[in-house]
């Protein structure tokens, strides 16, 4: 009687204990630990993906695409899910143009993820997808393309593997171009497929703004071709060409040599990727005489038609400064001094002007100060403080040695003269456009008056003589049908390696039409085999200016008289046969 009851009682106790344990565990799991388990379960089901934004495109001023982002496909595999690695490798190898053994090695790795090919085009991706190999998948990645190759490469810059701007406009406008990444939260089944009725929270990415540049693709191409021909033809180290609209500061073209292809920027050198027009300084030489002349005219030190007695050498301090070629003492108008690029004549005017005034005007024209262009890494140039000038500085600085500028700065100087004495900050971005197509013009550039309008006009007439007068140094810059005002330049070149002078930098910077200036073009050639800008840079200037005038439909404009009366020859002979010889010689700078 007692035993069955004991057994029953024991069983009951056991069952009760078991149930109590289960109930206790239930309370523990569902009550105290519920949050943790909910989190674990959520982590197993939910996946959070970052949605990269579409990087904004870059257009030229006419809407031609210069930089564009495209989705390309990346092929990857989970080797654990590839049933026959050898067969898969043999199928994929011809499509991906890869070594089958290399693919096989990847597909046999003890890993859950291997890249098989990155950023392939969509047609190829479709072929890979069509193979339907288990464990092999595709994922979209964005890649930056530059459809015009190396056109405006230095301006555009380039992006890195993560699509972040690393140079040029791409870097400077990174925040505008990049956009904001989005995010999607979804529930997935064990096979990785989205659960249709599961959680789905989407924060869409915001596409980056598009940039519309001031660059004109056609003029840019013409500038690059002219520069390439010049640099190659004169065996130069490099060079730059800048085309500006003086009235707005818009950069229509900015070409540099050597160049690179931003689609494959990794294959280029730092040297080739540098935007020399903005980052490299050089001593401008005779083109800087424009500033000396402007200061002298505006300070009423001398007028364009005033006559100077000009020997071929002049001692300042301990040094003797000479003209490019020896000549007897000549009487030259100030206009002729500039047209013939006489160093001695310019130095004599500078002595009348004084170093303080000259320093003031060099500063006014922007020497030693960044132009403020919307481009990274701009060099400020170099203008020594007037207190630090040596005695001999009055023999070098008035003729553009001992100071340093960038090609952009020097082109801006001439653009200021062209713009009736008002300097306008150069700019590269004309407008931005958001993803919805709303266009916002860039802020109007800053401007300030440097010289008065009358000085600017008189200076223009003087600079016209550089290309139009018989002894002018810039005759090769003439564009038939147009009046061209400009100045040649040739200066000792500072060797970046040694820091000393080695070779020359030649240049021609000018504007047209002289009567109603619409364009300013600067050409700077680094260490060409011929050491004068009249021979190296002036023809390139002509080529670019002629193309740009025609392309933009700019007519010849009103005709200006050339300033100053050209004299028939040397009035005072220095014992040499003089004038005819000087006229016959190729002009110096």
């Amino acid at each position: 009687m007692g035993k069955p009851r004991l057994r029953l009682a024991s069983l009951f106790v056991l069952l009760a204990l078991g149930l109590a344990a289960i109930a206790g565990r239930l309370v523990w799991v569902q009550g105290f630990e519920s949050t943790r388990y909910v989190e674990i379960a959520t982590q197993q089901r939910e996946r959070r993906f970052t949605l990269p934004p579409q990087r904004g495109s870059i257009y030229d001023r006419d809407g031609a695409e210069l930089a564009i982002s495209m989705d390309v496909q990346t092929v990857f595999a989970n080797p654990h899910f590839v049933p026959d690695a050898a067969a898969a490798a043999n199928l994929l190898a011809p499509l991906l143009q890869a070594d089958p053994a290399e693919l096989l090695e990847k597909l046999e790795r003890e890993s859950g993820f291997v890249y098989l090919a990155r950023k392939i085009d969509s047609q190829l991706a479709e072929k890979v997808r069509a193979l339907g190999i288990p464990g092999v998948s595709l994922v979209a990645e964005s890649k930056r393309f530059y459809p015009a190759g190396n056109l405006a490469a230095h301006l555009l810059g380039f992006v890195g593997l993560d699509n972040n701007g690393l140079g040029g406009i791409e870097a400077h406008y990174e925040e505008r171009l990049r956009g904001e990444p989005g995010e999607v939260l979804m529930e997935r089944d064990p096979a990785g497929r989205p659960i249709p009725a599961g959680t789905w929270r989407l924060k869409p990415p915001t596409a980056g703004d598009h940039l519309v540049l001031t660059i004109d693709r056609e003029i840019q191409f013409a500038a690059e071709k002219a520069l390439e021909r010049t640099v190659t033809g004169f065996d130069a180290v490099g060079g730059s060409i800048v085309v500006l609209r003086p009235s707005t500061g818009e950069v229509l073209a900015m070409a540099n040599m050597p160049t690179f292809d931003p689609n494959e920027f990794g294959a280029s050198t730092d040297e080739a990727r540098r935007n020399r027009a903005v980052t490299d300084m050089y001593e401008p030489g005779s083109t800087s005489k424009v500033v000396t002349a402007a200061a002298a005219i505006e300070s009423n030190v001398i007028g364009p038609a005033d006559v100077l007695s000009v020997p071929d050498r002049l001692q300042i301090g301990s040094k003797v400064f000479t003209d490019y070629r020896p000549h007897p003492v000549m009487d030259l108008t100030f206009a002729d001094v500039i047209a013939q690029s006489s160093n001695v004549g310019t130095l004599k005017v500078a002595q009348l002007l004084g170093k303080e005034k000259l320093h003031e005007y060099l500063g006014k024209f922007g020497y030693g100060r960044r132009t403020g262009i919307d481009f990274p890494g701009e060099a400020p140039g170099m203008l020594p403080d007037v207190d630090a000038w040596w005695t001999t500085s009055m023999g070098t600085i008035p003729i553009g040695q001992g100071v340093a500028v960038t090609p952009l700065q020097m082109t801006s100087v001439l653009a200021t003269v062209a713009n009736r004495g008002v300097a306008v900050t150069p700019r590269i971005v004309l407008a931005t456009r958001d993803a919805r197509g709303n266009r916002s013009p860039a802020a109007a550039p800053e401007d300030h008056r440097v010289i008065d309008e009358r000085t600017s006009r008189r200076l223009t007439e003087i600079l016209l003589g550089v290309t139009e007068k018989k002894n002018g140094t810039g005759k090769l810059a003439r564009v038939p049908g147009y009046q061209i005002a400009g100045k040649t330049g040739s200066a000792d070149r500072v060797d970046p390696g040694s820091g000393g002078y080695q070779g020359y930098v030649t240049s021609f910077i000018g504007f047209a039409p002289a009567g109603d200036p619409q364009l300013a073009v600067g050409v700077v050639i680094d260490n060409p085999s011929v050491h004068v800008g009249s021979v190296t840079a002036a023809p390139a200037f002509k080529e670019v200016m002629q193309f740009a005038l025609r392309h933009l439909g700019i007519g010849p404009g009103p005709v200006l008289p050339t300033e100053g009366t050209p004299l028939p020859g040397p009035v005072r002979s220095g014992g040499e046969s003089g004038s005819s010889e000087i006229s016959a010689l190729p002009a110096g700078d």
Partner: protein
Amino acid sequence: MASAPRRRVRSPAPARKGSHLRVIAGGRARSSTKPASRLSSRPALRFGAAAAIVLAAFVFGLVLLHVLLAQSAFRLQSLQDEVRLQEARFREMRYRVASSEAPARIAEAAEDIGLVVPGEQRYLLAPEEPPGEE
């Protein structure tokens, strides 16, 4: 041989006082009660069957709805993939157009067919006043 245990036979219990049971004449009364109970359980059966059918239909409908929802979601996913693919193709075509329009490519193509750079532009000055009609 052991004799089988004798079972105690209960004598029928005397009819209790106040019992509701009563004897009905004839044997029909027993048989006549059966059809009556069948008749009374039919509505319950019908109700049960109907409820089962409705429940089954409801469950089936629910499953069907879920399947349709799932199909729609997969279809939506497929369409979204297609949209992405077409957008990618569109961008690729834009890239091809831009590449084809690049000045360097056009210049090369022009040279290939024998085109040359135009000569220098000439300007003719028009007379200041148009000639009279007389």
